[in-house]
């Protein structure tokens, strides 16, 4: 079972993600801030992280940069209310980008795609 870390400052969104992604067969751990995310990351290994770009007074992009630097083996998907970041340089570090929507199909597809790609890489020994 793949283990996912979901970081979003909205409690209801964390709850929605957790419910929906659990239904898809993932183990989901949530965090409301960068600090909490760092804490959760210390506690275990994750196969993928889903980050919100705007975290109250923090930037999800900065957290993304930190994760890419410190945990480059863990893919990251950005999930944001802003579609404009999709073509922004700063967001290109992420493995996937999804605009927030009540319909989580795209997010689920993106998670599946990124995890499959990661599995292929591991298999190829990269």
């Amino acid at each position: 079972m793949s283990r996912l870390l979901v970081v979003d400052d909205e409690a209801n969104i964390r709850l929605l993600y957790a419910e929906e992604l659990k239904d898809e067969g993932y183990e989901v751990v949530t965090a409301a801030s960068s600090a909490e995310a760092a804490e959760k990351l210390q506690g275990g290994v994750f196969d993928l992280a889903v980050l919100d770009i705007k975290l109250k007074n923090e930037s999800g992009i900065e957290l993304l940069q930190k994760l890419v630097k410190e945990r480059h083996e863990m893919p990251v998907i950005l999930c944001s209310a802003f579609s404009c970041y999709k073509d922004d340089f700063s967001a290109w570090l992420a493995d996937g980008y999804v605009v927030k929507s009540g319909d989580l199909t795209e997010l689920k597809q993106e998670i599946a795609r990124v995890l499959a790609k990661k599995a292929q890489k591991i298999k190829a020994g990269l």
Partner: protein
Amino acid sequence: MDRECCWDREAIEQGDCPNVGVGEEDLLVSKRQRNLEKCCECPRFLNGLKQLHDDNNPLAPVLTSFLAEYRRQKTQIQSLVSFLDNKTLEIRFLHELGYVLQSSVDLDEVLSVALTAITAGKGFGMNRAFLLLCDREEGILKGYLGLGPRNMEEASQVWNEILQNDMDLQTLAQNFRLNKLSSERAKFHDVLEQLTVPLSNKDHILIKALDGKRPIMVEGAFQHPDVPPELARLLGVDTFLSMPLISRNRRVGMIIADNCITHRTITEEDMHSLETFGFPVAFAIERASLYDKLQIELNRVTEAGKKLKEQQELIVRMENMALVGRITSSIAHSVRNPLMIIGGFARSMLKNSTESDPRRTFIESIVAETRQLEGVLDEILNYSDSLYPTRDFWDVNQLVENALRDTADSMTSLGYSTCYTPDGDLPAVYIDFKQLSYCLRTVLQNDINGISEDLSISIRSQKGENCVILRIEDCSRLISQAELDHLLVPFSETHDLGAGLGLALCKTMLDKQGIPFVAQADVHSGIRYTITLPTRKEEQS
């Protein structure tokens, strides 16, 4: 005494005196005036005087002496009158010159007037003149303009032309400036190029004249110790005048004048006249130069003012942009998150409810309405993004490949095939990458109905003149041109928000960037889009 002579008659008839001509009728009735003006030169009167001598008349030597003195004084007066006339003409000329020089702040006009005055017959009548200007930054005296004929043939032609047209100095100078300035510059280009002397070369005749602030008449130029042989050879004359142009004790330049064609002697008088003329010329040149500099500074200030205004407008736009950005950001966060939560949980409830659940219809309504609202939100955000493009140089292939990659999953799931054929060596294009990416994605994924059996979309790039042309052929969507045109109008009456504004937004975004966007529809073959991407900044409006 010759009694036939008329000298002692009070009044005479026309023809009595051979010396009184037509137009001098007043002399016929004025004995005194006639005696003074005509008799002393008349051979018959002189014969009479000789007879007096022969008769040993004691008055004869006295009269002869008086007559000689009178004639000497008369000649002197005539010479003085002639001198006075010349001076009057000179003063008139200088007045006219001063007026022209004072009224002009155009350096070329001043120089044209100066050189025309020196070389024109109505002016100082020199054959040729060169004007050299001091370049203080470079520390040199440098040839700037030359005027005059190069040979006898050209001289005759020019002087005949001047004679026939009978122009005053101002007209001559104007004529020169408008019609001959460039050609004279070109004509004397070789001479002017070599007429460069360092201001530090104190032994050079021109610098000596300049430093001494006095004109120098150079005679025997080929043997003159202060005249470098190359200067003498360059001018090709043995005698020339070097006149410094000094304004407020500052060295402005130098005029070299000579009579290379007629070889007329340059007199002291010529030199003094030219010296008098040199002061207003120097002053006018300096003033015109300062005016030129002032004009350059003024243009700079004007340019800076214009830039400042543009910057101010930009700041206002940026502030508006920031405001729009803040508003849209706020909308995105404040509206999209609750919408997502409502829609997400509604879907979750729907997924977990049975077909017979009476609440299912309500939940389906919530899902549909939130989907609609999300569509509206997307369009508003995209539209606000389109208002302020941020352009830079981008790789076209990267743009197209990104768009194809982003849409690959959804296109494949719909059964579409896409292909891209890039042109070789494409230059970078000046675009807003985000907006162009959005446009390409929208063109690929737009929700126009009328799907044909051919689900293929091909993209080709082609290098054009200062542009790269993207041609997108969509064979799947079969609609008429009128229907397509309607879809390209944003927020038209028949458009509801959330009802597929994508193509209209594309057009708005591209219009804002000044990028031509043509969409041609055919009900049988599909839609062909042509986007002309500029490769230079100025190609955009």
